[in-house]
C-alpha cells in the first residue's frame, strides 16, 4: 500500500512540475469545449434557393412569396438561365433550385397536370432529403390553399418533445464532446506514460525495486483517474454554468459511471504503453483507437443507423456505453435501475483490461 502511495506521489509531482502539460491537460480541452460546442448543429436552419420561373404569372409569384415567407428559405438568386443556376448549386450559393414550367398558371386553372422541378444539392444526403421534404410541404400547402381553396389538413399528429423540448442541439452534443475530450486526454496520457519511461530509461530503476507489477499499474492508474475526474467535473461546471445543460439525474450515479469508465480507458492506455517500444508507436495506436471510438461512439451519427456489423462493433466499445449513459443520466434522469446492465458490462471491461495490463507489464528486460 505504501509503495502505491509513493508511486502516486511521484506521478503527481511529475505532472504538476510540468506547466506545459498542465495547460494541455486542463486548459486546452476546456477551450475546445467552449468553442466546439457551438459548432455541432445538424439542424437544417437555412435553405438557400434559386428561383427559376418560366411562367412569371400571378400564381407562380404567389408561390414564390410562400417560399420567401417561410423562415427556413432564403432567396439568393433569381434567373431564368438554367446553366447559371446550376453553377449556383455547384458553388454552394444555392441549396435548391425551384423551377416553374411554362404555362404553369394556365395549366393549373384548366386542370391540366403540371410539374415543378426541384434541383437539389444532395452531397449531404440527409440534408438533401430534408430540403426535398420541406419544399414539398410548402408546395402542397400552396396547392391546397390557392387552388383547392380548402384549408390544408391540420397536423394529424400532435408531437411532444421529451427530455429536450427546445430541440437544443447543444444539450445533445455537449455531454458527448466532454466525454470525448476526457477520453482523448486520459488515453493519450496513459499510453505515453510507460513508453516514455522506457525511452528515457527510468523504467529500469522501477524494475529493480521491490514494487509489485499490480502496484506499479495501480500507481499509474490512480493519478490519471483523479485527473480525469477533475477534468470531467470542470467540464460539467462549464456545461452547467455557461451552456445551461440540465442535470436531471443523480450526480453520484454519473460519478460512479465515470470512475468505472475511466478505469477501462486508462487501462487500455496502460496496456498500449506496456506493449510498445517508443512513444511514437504508442501515439499512433492511441490515435487509431481514439478515431474509431470517436466515430463509432454514436456521438456524431447514431448507432441505430449503422449497418448490423457496425452496430456490433459499436456495442463492443466502452465509449458508446458511457456516452449513452451520460446522456440518459444527465438529460433523462435515468438511474441505476435502468442502467445497471451497462454498469456491469463496463465493470467487467475495467477488470479484464487492467488485469491484462498487469500481466503484459514485464519487469524483466528482453
Amino acid at each position, binding site marked *: 500500500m505504501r509503495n502505491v502511495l509513493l508511486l502516486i506521489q511521484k506521478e503527481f509531482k511529475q505532472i504538476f512540475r510540468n506547466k506545459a502539460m498542465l495547460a494541455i491537460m486542463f486548459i486546452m480541452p476546456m477551450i475546445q469545449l467552449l*468553442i466546439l460546442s457551438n459548432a455541432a448543429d445538424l439542424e437544417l436552419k437555412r435553405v438557400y434557393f434559386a428561383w427559376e420561373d418560366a411562367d412569371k404569372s400571378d400564381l407562380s409569384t404567389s408561390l414564390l412569396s410562400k417560399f420567401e415567407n417561410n423562415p427556413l428559405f432564403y432567396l439568393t438568386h433569381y434567373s431564368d438561365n438554367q446553366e447559371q443556376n446550376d453553377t449556383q448549386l455547384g458553388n454552394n450559393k444555392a441549396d435548391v433550385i425551384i423551377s416553374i414550367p411554362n404555362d404553369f398558371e394556365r395549366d393549373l386553372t384548366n386542370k391540366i397536370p403540371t410539374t415543378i422541378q426541384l434541383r437539389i444539392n*444532395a452531397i449531404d444526403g440527409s440534408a438533401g432529403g430534408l430540403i426535398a421534404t420541406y419544399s*414539398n410541404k410548402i408546395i402542397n400547402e400552396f396547392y391546397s390553399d390557392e387552388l383547392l381553396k380548402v384549408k390544408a389538413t391540420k397536423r394529424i399528429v400532435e408531437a411532444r418533445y421529451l427530455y429536450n423540448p427546445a430541440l437544443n442541439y447543444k444539450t445533445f452534443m455537449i455531454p458527448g464532446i466532454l466525454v470525448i475530450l476526457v477520453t482523448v486526454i486520459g488515453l493519450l496520457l496513459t499510453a505515453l506514460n510507460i513508453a516514455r519511461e522506457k525511452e528515457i530509461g527510468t523504467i529500469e530503476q522501477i524494475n529493480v525495486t521491490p514494487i509489485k507489477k499490480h502496484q506499479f499499474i495501480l500507481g499509474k492508474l490512480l493519478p490519471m483517474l483523479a485527473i480525469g475526474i477533475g477534468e470531467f467535473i470542470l467540464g460539467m461546471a462549464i456545461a452547467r454554468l455557461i451552456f445551461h445543460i440540465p442535470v436531471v439525474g443523480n450526480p453520484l450515479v454519473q460519478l460512479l459511471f465515470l470512475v468505472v469508465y475511466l478505469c477501462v480507458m486508462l487501462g487500455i492506455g496502460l496496456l498500449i504503453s506496456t506493449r510498445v517500444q517508443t512513444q511514437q508507436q504508442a501515439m499512433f495506436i492511441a490515435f487509431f483507437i481514439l478515431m474509431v471510438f470517436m466515430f463509432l461512439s454514436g456521438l456524431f451519427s447514431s448507432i441505430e443507423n449503422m449497418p448490423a456489423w457496425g452496430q456490433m462493433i459499436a456495442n463492443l466499445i466502452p465509449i458508446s456505453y458511457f456516452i449513452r449513459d451520460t446522456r440518459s443520466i444527465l438529460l433523462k434522469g435515468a438511474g441505476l435501475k435502468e442502467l445497471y446492465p451497462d454498469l456491469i458490462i463496463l465493470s467487467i471491461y475495467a477488470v479484464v483490461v487492467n488485469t491484462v495490463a498487469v500481466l503484459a507489464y514485464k519487469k524483466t528486460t528482453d
Partner: protein
Amino acid sequence: MHNLLIFIRKEILHILRDPRSLSIMILMPLAEILLIGFVMRFEIEHTNIAVYDMAKQHSSVQLIQRLEGGKRFSAKTVDSMEEAERLLKSNKVKAILRISPDFERKILNDNEPTLQLILDAIDPNTATTIEAYMNAVLNDYFRDQGMSYSPQLLKIDQLMYYNPMLKSVYGTVPGLISVILMLICALMTSVSLTREKEMGTLNVLLISPLKPIQIIIGKVIPYLLVSLVNIAVILVLAFTVFKMPLAGSLLLLILVSLLYCLCALALGFLISTKSQSQQVAMMVSLAGLMLPTTLLSGMIYPIKNMPMWLQGITYLMPARWFINILKHIMLKASPVSAFLPDIGILLLMTLVITAISLHNFKVRFK
C-alpha cells in the same frame, strides 16, 4: 544541395529501419477509412417505436399494421403509458405513438383523429426526422381512408444533384479523407525535432552546415513520400470500396492531396519547434487537432449553421478548404476556376506555417 540529399537519405533510413512504426503509419489510415467510412450513416432507416393503442378498434389496428408494413418503423405494443415511458427512458424505443380511445369515432366523422407522438428529443435531428417520417406514413394512411383531398394536379419532380441515391458516403468519405490525412501527417512530423531534442542528437544537427530551411525540407520530404502512399491507399479505397465517382482530373486530385499533406506536415513541424518534449508535441497535435478538425471542417456539421465568429475560425482549418476541393473534383465536375481560390488558400497556409517554423527554429544552443 548535396548536404540536403544526404540528410534526406538519413531521414528516410530512419523511417525504413523502424518497420513497426512505418507499417502502423500505412495500415492505420486504411483500416480507419474502411471501418469508419462504412459505419458512419446519417440516414435514419429504421426506428423502434412503442405504440399505446387505447382504442383497440378495427381502424387503429389497421393503422398499426400500416406502420409495421413499411420498413421505417417496428412497433412494439404496450399496455400502459408507464411501460412506454420506461422503454423510452432506457433507450429501447425512440418514440411513443399514443392512439386515444375516440380514434375510430373521429375517423368516421371525418374529424381530426387524435394521435399523440411523444419523441425522445435528446437528438433533435433524429426526433424531427422521425416526426417527418411518421407524418408521411400517416398522411398516406388517411389519404387511403378517403379523408384527403382530390388527386394532385401539381406534381413535383425532384432531381438530386451530385448524389442521386442520397448516399451518406458521398459526404462522409471526403471528410474522412481530410481528417485522417491531416492527423496522420501532423502526427508524423510533430515529434521530428522534439525526439532529437530529447535524445540529444539535435545539437549534432545544429552544428552541421545545414541551414534551418534545409532541415525542415529534409524532415518533411521523407514523410511526404509516406503520405503519398497514404493518399494512394485512401483514394483506391474511396474509388473501389466506397464507389466514389471521379468527375474531375485524377492528377489534379493527387496534386492537391499532396499539397494538403504538405500543409499538415508543416503544421506538425511547427508544433515540433514549439514543444520541449515528445509528450507535449503529441498531446498538442493529437488532442489539439482531432476534435477541431472533425467539427470545424464542415465534415459533419454544416459550416453555415455555425455562429458567425465560429465561421471565421473555420477559415483557419486547412481541412475546410480541402474538403471543398475534394467535393468539387470527385462529385461536381466543376471547372478548375471554381476551386482555384481554395487551392490558393491551402498554398498560402503552407507557406505561412513554414515561415513561422523557420522563425521559431533556433540554431543557437539553449
